[in-house]
């Protein structure tokens, strides 16, 4: 009896160790994927956009350049897009650079320091990724205000001449400050695959400068649109913009959501 048990156990062991005895061969292929971040901003715009104020109507009504800049976004990551006013700082951080001073330049009321925020922008498509914003204006999608109604809703974001991103109170063209993942970014995508007449990856930008008379630029406002920066408010009553040639530039910055 004991011998029979040994035989059964031996057979069981043999069976157990032989279950995986089929001939086998294996071959491995390692697949590595390098997803490089691509943030691509295609911009179509003139080298220079000139605003020449040489008659009274233009001072009163301002000059608007419609669709002067086209922005097209392709991004593989969630992104934010904003515009910031900058200059070389000849007249100080946050002011236009005065290239030429017309006239004698001796009038104390003629102010050469024009705020960068006097430039107004209007984007063709509302910012669809900005519900997290806390300021009065989340983007530049509002229509330009009528002459005589001062407003900061379209005034260009400026941060003392730097390119630092706006805060939650500022304006973004697409996306917004913060990384909560809710209402503060636009998802990766490309204008190449968007259809229809509107797209979160395609923006046409209009520019307006409204000097007013006297030329105080009433629509110049702080980054949150709450504090006027026109020539009089920033200086004293009776001041006005000094005639001359001024330059500045608008920097469009596309960056990963942050």
């Amino acid at each position, binding site marked *: 009896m004991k011998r029979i048990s040994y035989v059964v156990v031996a057979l069981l062991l043999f069976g157990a160790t032989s279950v995986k005895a089929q001939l086998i061969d294996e071959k491995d292929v390692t*697949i590595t994927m390098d997803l490089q971040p691509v943030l691509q901003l295609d911009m179509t715009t003139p080298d220079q956009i000139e605003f020449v104020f040489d008659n009274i109507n233009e001072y009163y009504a301002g000059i608007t350049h419609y669709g002067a800049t086209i922005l097209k976004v392709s991004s593989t*990551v969630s992104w934010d897009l904003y515009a910031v006013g900058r200059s070389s700082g000849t007249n100080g951080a946050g002011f236009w650079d005065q290239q030429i001073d017309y006239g004698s330049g001796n009038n104390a009321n003629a102010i050469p320091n024009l705020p960068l925020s006097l430039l107004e922008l209007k984007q063709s498509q509302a910012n669809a990724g900005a519900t997290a914003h806390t300021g009065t204006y989340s983007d530049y999608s509002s229509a330009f205000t009528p002459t005589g109604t001062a407003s900061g809703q379209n005034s260009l974001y400026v941060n003392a001449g730097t390119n630092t991103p706006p805060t939650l109170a500022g304006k973004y063209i697409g996306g917004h400050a913060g990384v909560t993942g809710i209402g503060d970014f636009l998802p990766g995508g490309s204008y190449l695959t968007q259809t229809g007449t509107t797209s979160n990856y395609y923006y046409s930008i209009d520019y307006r400068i409204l000097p007013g008379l006297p030329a105080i630029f009433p629509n110049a406002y702080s980054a949150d649109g709450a504090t006027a920066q026109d020539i009089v408010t920033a200086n004293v009553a009776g001041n006005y913009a000094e005639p001359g040639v001024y330059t500045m530039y608008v920097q469009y910055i596309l960056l*990963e959501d942050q």
Partner: protein
Amino acid sequence: MLSFSLVTQAQLHCGLVSFEPNTSESAMLTFDTPAKYQGGITINGATRLKIRVNNKNIVDPLCSWNLTMLIDNNPGAGTPISEWEKLILYGNGLGQNPLIQSLEIRIRNACSTSPNDGIYQTFTLNTDIIDIIAPLLPITPAGSCTNNVNGPGDYIGNYDEFHFDIDIRVIPKFAFNPGVFQLNLRFHLEENP
């Protein structure tokens, strides 16, 4: 009786099953333009499987084989079971790491011996298995140039049945974190019991 059954399952019917060569290979997919993200990258013939299955010297009519592929994302590194293994992240990494199912595999040979020949297929989770020639099928002899050829033979004598081109494709679009990610695709050739 139990022991007898186990022994029967373990019986060898073939003399040799092997990939030739069976060295590891690698494929690199680099996405660096929006067009590549949108259109994807395809590598046709990322690897080629050449198979040899020999019968025993004393021919066993039950010698047949199966061929499967398995996906491995190195879960020991903490990789979630549905994702590619992350080697490095670019940027803030706030999004989704690539999913295993974004890798598409296509098998081809001239006789379309695999029932899935020419069709892109995907895995979903780590250790998922896809059959190329399924296990335990009735024996279809080499030379018949039809589905599921699994009898003895080799790529020299029956190239169109014992050779498989493996194509890989990934179309990430704009859904995943940027970074470097990896998967291992294991081809498993085994004689049928």
